[in-house]
Each structure stands twice: as structure tokens, then as C-alpha cells.
């Protein structure tokens, strides 16, 4: 059972990663990030459930908080980016040339 | 106690010159001259009969007793000769830069004094950790001298010099630690004293590697061909005083290191390594001479002559005979004087013509006859004309090396022809040919004094070097006995 929950977490994580890599729109990038964080949280909760311990849920709470803070800052950045570059493509902002 | 003072006086002189130079530039110069003069008197007072082991004076104070590290200093004839050379060239360097250096004069003399102090320390240190410390001490101010007061590519040259010496110095540090560890294993206690480490018996392979660690550091400084490429850049970019100190003194620390540490500490490994080193020396003689011939930058040319001349030193050191070691010491002194003088001349020419390009210098002899005569004199010294110090030195080195290995010696002897080619090319390019039309000032009295002192010293070394040999002989005898006879 816990194994299936972990499999679900892995699939969700992978979907999030693919979204992160494939999408050009910054909104979708953040969205995919949320999916990945969520998948990670799922994995923790499943592990906690497997052992009947609260630690998994505690960690999920932390992830939740981190996700919230990240989304707040990330979306603020998206707004700035839009005003500065008139685009949501993060590559448009790549000035760090190699 | 005198030995400590010998190192401390220039350090203090430097500390004094810095703030004084901010008020009046002359004060910084005078402070440096006074410090070095006092030091020279101090060094001369140490002349005397050698004590047991060839030492004229020793000093010992614990520093980090738990690791067997101490402030151990010792002075024998070899050190004394080099100390005297250091102070003499140092004084002349201050005089030579009197009109050349106009910016940050105080800081310049601070650096100069500290380099000299580091070099003096290297010639005196008898504790390997202390030796390493002083070895690094002389590096940093030298880098400043090049990087702050140098010519057009000064930063490049300074960084190259720093990287070469630093990297090779770290290899030496590893070898020092390895040797200390070996001593700890054998004797049960830590010690980095020269005397204690002399007797450590090592497994042959380990000894070879440790020896190579020392050799790397000294070979870069000497320089041995392949590791020499920092030298033309550093020499040609440094200000006159910097070039003088580099050529006349810093290179000698490499030779001194080989004589004092690399060979006596690892006699057997050195015997195995000697053929390679002698061939490298012979190659260096020829390679440096050919490259000197090809250069168009006056200071680069002189720099490559150093590579050539120090090839003789390497050859002589690894021949390890009485003749060759005596010749080596004389070569160190004579090369210091002749090359130092050539750098003074190059600096004087640059000050007047603002070029070091031999293609653009021409026919100067009628314009500046005194400078022409001086250039001829030192060019002849550099090509090994009998009657000047370099000849006796090269003759003794080659005689000594001939007994051991005739073939590299023959190759090195051919370097004398190559030396003729580059010396004459340098002299004739700059001073002969259709007369230049420029109006240039001839050598001023101060420059004449500096060059005259060097010239007289070279003549003395060429015609009656015996007093010098007598100072050095006991020390060399001890070294020869420590590391066995001819390898």
C-alpha cells in the first residue's frame, strides 16, 4: 500500500518535472513546481503512515509552508518579470551570458 | 645574536623607510642605504676563522618545541659570501633606482628591504620550517616589486613568477614534511633541524621523491631549463632594482638550496639524479645562449644569459667536486655582479631612450662613450673573458665537471662560443653601426660608481679570487664530506 503511494508520488513528481522542463510560461513553471512539492509531501505522508508516526505529516507541513513562501515570492517575481520584459518566458531574462 | 640582527636590520629598515618615504622620498632611500650599510658592516664583522663543522656563527631559539621547530640560524663561509653579495647588490640596487623610482618610493624600499631580508634569512636558516617560511617571505615583496613598478606587462610577469615559485615551493613543503615524518618514525620525536635531518636514513625510492620535491623548488629558482620561462618575463618586466635582485640574488637561493639541502640531505638519491641534472645543466647553457642570441628585447636577452650562466652552476653543483663547487660559488658571485651590471645598463639605456628594443638602438658608442665602454666590459665578463671573475668560475666548473662527465661538459663548453655570439651581438647592435643622432646623457657619477664597483669586483675575482676561495673552502669541505665524494 505504502509502495503504491510512493509510486503515485513518483509519477506526480515526474509529471511536475516534465512540466517544469517543457513549459516556457513562468506560471506553468511555478505550477509544475507546486506539483513536485506536493508529490514530495505525498511521499512523506505515505512513509509516515507506513510507520504510524507523525513525523511524515510534520515534514509535509514544513513543505507546505515552504511551498507557500516560494509561491508568494515566485509569483511576485513573475509580476516583476512581466513588467520588465513583457514576457513570461524566463529565457527572455537570461542576461547571464556564458 | 648577530645572525638574528642580520635579518632583522633590513626588516626594520624597510618598516622605517615606508612612512619616511611619504614625507620625503630621499629619506626612504637614505633609510634603506643606512640599514643595508649597517648590515654589511655586521656581516663583515663575522669574518673570521671557522669553528667546528665550518660554522662561523650559529644561533638557536625554540619556536614550536612540540614539533621540533626552532629558530635555528647558522653562518658558514658559503653563507657569508652570499650574504655579502646580497648586501652589496642590495646597496647597489638602491643606488641604481635612485632616479628611476619616483612613485610610492617608501613602499618600494620597504619591499626591497624585505626581499633582501628574506634572502638573507634563506642563506642563514638551519631549520627547514624556518627555511620554508623565509623562502616564502622573499617571494611576496618581490611580486610587489614587479607588479607595481614594472614595465608594460608587469601583471602577467608578476603572476607567472608567483605561480611558478609558489607551486614549486609547495612541493618543497611536502618534501620537508615528508622528511620530518621520516625522522619522527626513525627517532621517535619530531625535529626539523638541519643537523638532525642530515642523518636520517631513507628508503631509496622515498628519498628520490623527497629529493625531487626540494629539487623542484630550487630548479624553478635557479632556473633549470624547462622551468625557466618565468624568468625572462619577470626579469624584463621588473624595474632595474628588481631585475638586479632577481638575477643576482634570488636565483642564487636556488643554487644555495641545492648545495645546502637537496644534495646533503639526500646524498644517494642525488648520486642517482646527478647525470640527469648535469645534462639539464648543459642543455640550459646552450638553450639559454641560443635564445639570448635571438632576443630583441635587451632585458630579455640579459635574462636568457642568466639561464645560460646558471646552467654552469647546475652542472657544477651536480659534479660535486672541489673544483666544480668552488667554481659554482664564484660563478654565483660573478654572475650576480656581471648580470646585475648589465641590468643597470639596460635600465640606464631605457631611462634615456625609452626603448629596450635592440632593433631601435644603434650606434650609441659615439654618443655615450662611457656607457659603451661599460657595456663592452660587462658583455666581455658575460662571455667569460679571462681576467674577469666569470672566466675563473666557468673554468673551475668545467674542469670539475670534466672529471665526472666529459660529454655534458663538452656541450657546456660550446656554450662559450654561443656566449660570444650573444654578447657581441648585444654590444654591437646597441653601440656599433652608423652613429646615432640622438643627444643622450652619458653615465652620471652615481651610475658610474655603481658600475665601477661591480667592475672592480669582477676584476678582483678574475685575477685574485683566492681570498674568496679561502672563506668558502671550509664550508665546501664539510659539504663534500657530508655527501660523500664525487657522485
Amino acid at each position: 500500500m505504502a509502495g503504491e503511494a510512493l509510486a503515485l508520488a513518483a509519477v506526480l513528481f515526474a509529471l511536475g518535472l516534465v512540466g517544469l522542463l517543457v513549459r516556457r510560461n513562468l506560471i506553468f513553471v511555478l505550477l509544475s513546481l507546486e506539483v513536485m512539492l506536493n508529490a514530495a509531501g505525498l511521499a512523506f505522508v505515505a512513509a509516515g503512515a507506513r510507520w504510524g508516526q507523525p513525523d511524515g505529516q510534520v515534514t509535509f507541513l514544513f513543505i507546505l509552508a515552504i511551498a507557500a513562501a516560494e509561491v508568494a515570492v515566485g509569483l511576485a517575481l513573475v509580476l516583476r518579470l512581466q513588467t520588465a520584459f513583457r514576457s513570461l518566458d524566463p529565457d527572455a531574462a537570461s542576461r547571464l551570458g556564458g | 645574536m648577530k645572525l638574528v640582527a642580520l635579518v632583522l636590520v633590513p626588516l626594520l629598515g624597510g618598516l622605517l623607510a615606508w612612512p619616511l618615504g611619504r614625507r620625503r622620498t630621499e629619506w626612504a632611500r637614505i633609510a634603506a642605504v643606512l640599514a643595508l650599510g649597517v648590515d654589511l658592516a655586521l656581516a663583515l664583522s663575522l669574518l673570521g676563522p671557522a669553528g667546528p663543522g665550518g660554522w662561523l656563527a650559529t644561533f638557536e631559539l625554540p619556536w614550536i618545541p612540540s614539533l621540533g621547530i626552532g629558530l635555528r640560524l647558522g653562518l658558514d663561509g658559503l653563507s657569508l659570501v652570499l650574504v655579502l653579495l646580497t648586501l652589496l647588490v642590495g646597496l647597489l640596487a638602491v643606488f641604481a633606482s635612485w632616479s628611476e623610482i619616483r612613485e610610492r618610493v617608501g613602499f618600494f624600499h620597504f619591499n626591497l628591504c624585505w626581499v633582501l631580508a628574506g634572502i638573507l634569512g634563506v642563506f642563514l636558516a638551519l631549520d627547514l620550517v624556518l627555511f620554508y617560511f623565509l623562502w616564502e617571505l622573499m617571494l611576496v615583496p618581490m611580486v610587489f616589486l614587479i607588479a607595481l613598478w614594472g614595465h608594460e606587462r608587469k601583471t602577467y610577469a608578476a603572476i607567472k613568477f608567483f605561480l611558478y615559485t609558489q607551486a614549486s615551493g609547495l612541493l618543497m613543503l611536502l618534501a620537508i614534511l615528508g622528511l620530518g615524518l621520516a625522522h619522527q618514525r626513525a627517532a621517535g620525536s619530531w625535529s626539523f633541524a638541519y643537523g638532525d635531518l642530515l642523518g636520517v636514513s631513507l628508503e631509496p625510492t622515498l628519498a628520490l621523491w623527497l629529493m625531487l620535491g626540494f629539487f623542484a623548488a630550487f630548479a624553478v629558482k635557479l632556473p633549470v631549463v624547462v622551468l625557466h620561462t618565468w624568468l625572462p618575463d619577470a626579469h624584463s618586466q621588473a624595474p632595474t632594482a628588481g631585475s638586479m635582485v632577481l638575477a643576482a640574488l634570488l636565483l642564487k637561493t636556488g643554487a644555495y638550496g641545492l648545495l645546502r639541502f637537496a644534495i646533503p640531505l639526500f646524498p644517494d638519491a642525488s648520486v642517482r639524479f646527478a647525470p640527469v641534472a648535469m645534462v639539464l645543466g648543459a642543455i640550459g647553457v646552450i638553450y639559454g645562449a641560443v635564445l639570448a642570441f635571438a632576443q630583441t628585447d635587451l632585458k630579455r636577452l640579459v635574462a636568457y644569459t642568466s639561464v645560460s650562466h646558471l646552467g654552469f652552476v647546475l652542472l657544477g653543483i651536480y659534479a660535486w667536486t672541489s673544483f666544480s663547487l668552488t667554481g659554482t660559488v664564484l660563478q654565483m658571485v660573478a654572475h650576480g655582479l656581471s648580470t646585475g651590471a648589465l641590468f643597470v645598463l639596460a635600465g640606464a639605456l631605457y631611462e634615456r631612450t625609452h626603448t629596450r628594443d635592440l632593433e631601435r638602438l644603434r650606434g650609441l658608442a659615439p654618443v655615450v662613450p662611457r656607457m659603451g665602454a661599460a657595456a663592452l666590459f660587462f658583455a666581455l665578463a658575460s662571455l667569460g673573458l679571462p681576467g674577469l671573475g666569470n672566466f675563473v668560475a666557468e673554468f673551475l666548473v668545467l674542469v670539475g665537471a670534466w672529471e665526472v662527465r666529459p660529454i655534458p661538459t663538452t656541450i657546456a663548453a660550446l656554450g662559450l662560443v654561443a656566449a660570444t655570439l650573444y654578447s657581441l651581438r648585444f654590444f654591437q647592435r646597441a653601440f656599433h653601426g652608423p652613429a646615432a643622432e640622438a643627444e643622450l646623457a652619458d653615465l652620471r657619477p652615481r651610475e658610474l660608481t655603481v658600475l665601477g664597483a661591480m667592475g672592480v669586483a669582477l676584476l678582483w675575482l678574475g685575477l685574485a679570487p683566492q681570498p674568496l676561495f679561502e672563506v668558502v673552502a671550509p664550508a665546501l669541505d664539510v659539504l663534500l664530506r657530508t655527501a660523500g665524494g664525487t657522485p
Partner: protein
Amino acid sequence: MLDLLWLVPVLPLAGFLALTFAGRRLAKPAVTAIGVGSVGLSSLVAGAVAAAFLGHMPPGGVHRQILWRWFDVAGLRPEISLHLDALSLVMILVVTGVGFLIHLYSAQFMEEDADFARFFASMNLFVAMMLVLVLAGDLLLLYLGWEGVGLCSFLLIGFWYGEPANVLAARKAFVVTRVGDVAMAIGLFILVDRLGTLDLQAVVARAEAQWAPGSAAVVAVAALLLGGAVGKSAQLPLQTWLPDAMAGPTPVSALIHAATMVTAGVYLVARTGGLFELAPSIRTAVAVIGTATLLLAAGAALVQRDIKRILAYSTISQLGYMFLGLGVGSASAAIFHLVTHAFFKALLFLGAGAVIYACHHEHDIFRLGGLRRSLPTVTWTFVAGAAALAGFPLVTAGFYSKDLVLWRAFAGGHFLLWGAGLLGAFVTALYSFRLVFVVFWGETGTEAGARPGWRMTVPLTILAALSLVGGWLGLPAVLEPVLGAAEEMAEPHGTELLLQVLAGVVSLGGIALAWALYGRPGRHGDPVADALGPVGRWWRAGWGFDALYDRLFVRPYDAVARALEKDPVDRLPAAAAGLARGFHRALALTQNGRLRWYALSLAAGATFALYLVLTL
């Protein structure tokens, strides 16, 4: 009186020092006084020393004066010492005597030159160094003088350094002789290594005690010393520098490149004769080199047009005779020829100098001519010198000395060498009188301008007298105690007489042929050179040695030097730096500011890490 020996080299040295440090502030008469006077005084002292030496021969025929010990390392104790025996006595008399006459001559010849003081300073230094060379009691001190004269030769060839060709000639002379010097230095290394000394007497004594005749060490030493001698005396294969050395002022050519320095090689071989006796193969090589050189140089002299180059090749050729004498074991004959050659060749050079001086620096003999009428003194002294060079029988010194060399070759059984020497003598007579007839007879070419004054004619006259009567000096008898008597003559006296007659006939034949070709009025061009055609051009170019060496050594060295100029070893650290920079570039490429690229690499890295965790 003998104790004043040290003054002989020191006086010119003092002159050099005075002229170097104060010469620019002195007036010309003062410079002349110092420059000529120091050598004059030195020759007077040398004369007094000679009188004392011959009047009261010291024991063993050797007087030694130790000035100071040079150094003392591991048993090697070379000394700054003067060694006076018959050989060095003859040499110092020649050096100071001829030297003084040439200095006197130069006082007028160089009068107009701006660098008058520098000229005399260099000349004085040369005389001092030459005296050190011939008086040295130690091979190392000899080497000092040896290099010292080389230096002065360099300075004086390049005296007019405004002309690039002169500068190159000076450098060439120094470098080519230095090649020989290095060989000699290696010879000294072997001597120190094996015999532990460089003292002249000790070296020969120990060599005889230690080395079997023909053993490898002694052969090597003799060969290497010969290398030095060959370089200094411009013998094959190092002869190429001497013709170019004529770029110097003519008195320099007379003093350095005819009378004294170039004979140093002969002196060295004579001085270390003991070693050469132990190495018979090398001694034969000396004779062969000498013979080959004398023929080659005589051929080259025959077709030259430049008056000084003719004399230069002639000098090389005459030095070949001296080497032949040394090689057949008769050092005394060689030294005898050295002395007479010093007289007549110095005379010829000074005479040529007078011609050049008078005719506005015209060197081409075919543009000169008929000078007999305008320059009578020069003409007759020159004829005396040329006759001595050609070996005009009975009345010239050259006849006696050259004949002695040839006779010793014949008596030693070296018939081939003797024959070659005789052929050389014929060519010598031909080219020397070709010179005389073209320059002094025939139609007037360039008009003579300035007339030489007494300071030029007096030395010419004295040298002419010496060239004529010098043959009766009986030098070989003086020298034989030092150099070893020649072996007992196997041939009866009659043969010697016959050969003398033959040599005289050959010489006269050469002169007659020269008259037939060049002396008669109505001559056009240069019959000998025309007859020889391309061979003549080849000979004129010194048998192509310069071109050959240019291909073999000069250009390759230049090419190597140019190829190495930027120091290929420097590529090594530059390569390391380049590698680091390339690595940096590659890494910097990943730092491109593209967010998704970062994410991708992060993901790839994480996947890779996961893969490692799972598989390892």
C-alpha cells in the same frame, strides 16, 4: 736587470689604462707620447732584459718571475708568473720592437682620426696582452693573453664601427677564433684532470713521465691545443676570419694580423712541443694542415684584387709554412720563419698602408699603378719586403727561413710536403711580384696625394733593413736549446746546398714569370685570373669556405635561434593556462542564465546521483 721583466707587459698596460681613463681629455701629442712611448719604453726594457739574459744565462736557460698566485683550489695552483727563456725572449723582442715601429707609423697614419686615443689604447692593450701570452709561465695565464689578444683584435678590426661590414668582420674574427679557443680550453681540462697542473714546465715534464707516446690522452690534448692554434693562426679549417679582418686600420693588420697575434698559434705549438712529440699523429696533422693551408692561401692570394687581401692570404700561406716547420719537428725553423715573417710582412702591410694613405684609400691594385715615381721610399722598401716574401735568394731573410723549413721537411723524409712547399714558394714569388709590378710599375693609376712623413718612412726603412739582413741572425742556434735540436741530419751537406739552389731557382722563376705577365708595359687586365677563369673566381672567394660555413653553421644557427626566439618551452605553461581557460569556457557555457537549462541539468544530475545510489 732580469727582475724588471714585469715592466715589459706592464708598461703598455699602463699606457692602455691612462689612455682609456684620460684619453679623451688629453691633447693629441700627449696621446701619441703615451701610446707610442709606453711601447717604446717596453721595447727598451725588453732589450735590456735580453742583454742581461744573453750576457749571463740563468741556470737551465729559464728565468721565472712569479708575481702572485692566481688561486689555489684542490691542488691546482696556477700562478701569474712570467717565464723567460730564449723562445719568449725572441718573441718579446719581436712584439715590442715591431710593435714600437708600427705604433710610430700609426702616429701619422691615424693622425686625422677622431678616435685617436681609443686607437692607441686598444693597440697598447694588445701589446700588453701579447706580451702576457708569450711570457706566461702557466697555460692558464697564456690563455688569458690568448683571449686578450683576441679581444683587442676584435676591437681593432671593428675600430671604424660606423660601417656595418667592419662590425661583422670583427664579430666573425672573435667568434671563429673562439671556436678554436674552446677546443684549447677542453685540452686544458684534460691536462688539469690527468696531470693536475697547468704550469708549462710541469705539464711537459709530467706528460713525459705519465703518458706513453701516442696514448689517447696525449693525442686528445695535442689535437685540442692544435684546434686553438689553428683558430688563432688562421689555418684550415678556421682561416676564414683573417681576410675579413682587413677591415681594420692598416697598422692593425700589420701588427696583429701579420706580425704577432696570428703567430700565437705557432708559438703555442712550439711552446708545448713536448706534448706534440708524444703525439706523432697530431704532429703529422700539423704539417699536413700547414701544407694544405699554404697552398690554398697562395692560390687565393694569386687572384685577389684588394691589396690588403692579397697580403692577408699571403699571411695565411706563410703561417702554413710555420706549421709545416712545426709539423716536421723543427720548431726552431718555424720560429725563425715567424721572426723574419714578422719583419717583412709588417713591412709589406705598412707599405700597403702608405700606398692607401697616399692614394685616398684606394684598395684595388688594378686602379693603382706607376707609384714608383711618386713614392720612391715606399716602393723600394716594399720591393725589399716582397723579395723577402718571395724568398729572393741570398740577400733576403725570407729566403733563409723558408729554405730552412723546406730543408727540414725534406730531411725528415716528408718529400711530398717538401714538394708542395716548393710549389707554394713558386706561387708566392709569383703573387708577391704581381702585386709589386701592378702597383708600382706600369701606367699611373690613382695619383698619389699625401706623402708619408718621417714617422712612416723610418719604420719602413728599419723593417726593410731587417727583412734583408734578418736571415743572418742565426736564430735557430739560439732557439735550439729550448725547442730541442733537430735530429741529426741524415743527408750530407751537399744535398742541402742543392736544395737551396733549387729553392732559389724556383723563387727567381716565379719573379720572372710575374715580370713576364705583369711587368712589361702594355699589359691589360689580370692574365692569371683570366687564364684561371671560374677557378680563379672560386679562389678569389677564398675557395668558397665562407659560403660553405654560411650554409653549414651561420644560417642553421640563425634559423634555430629564430625558431626558438619565442621560447617554445613557454608553450608548456601556456598550454596549462590554456587548458584551464578552456575548462573555464566550457563551464561558463553552462552558466547561461536559462532557467530551464539549469533545471534540466539539476534533474540530470539528480537522476545520475539516483542511478549511482541504486546501482552501486
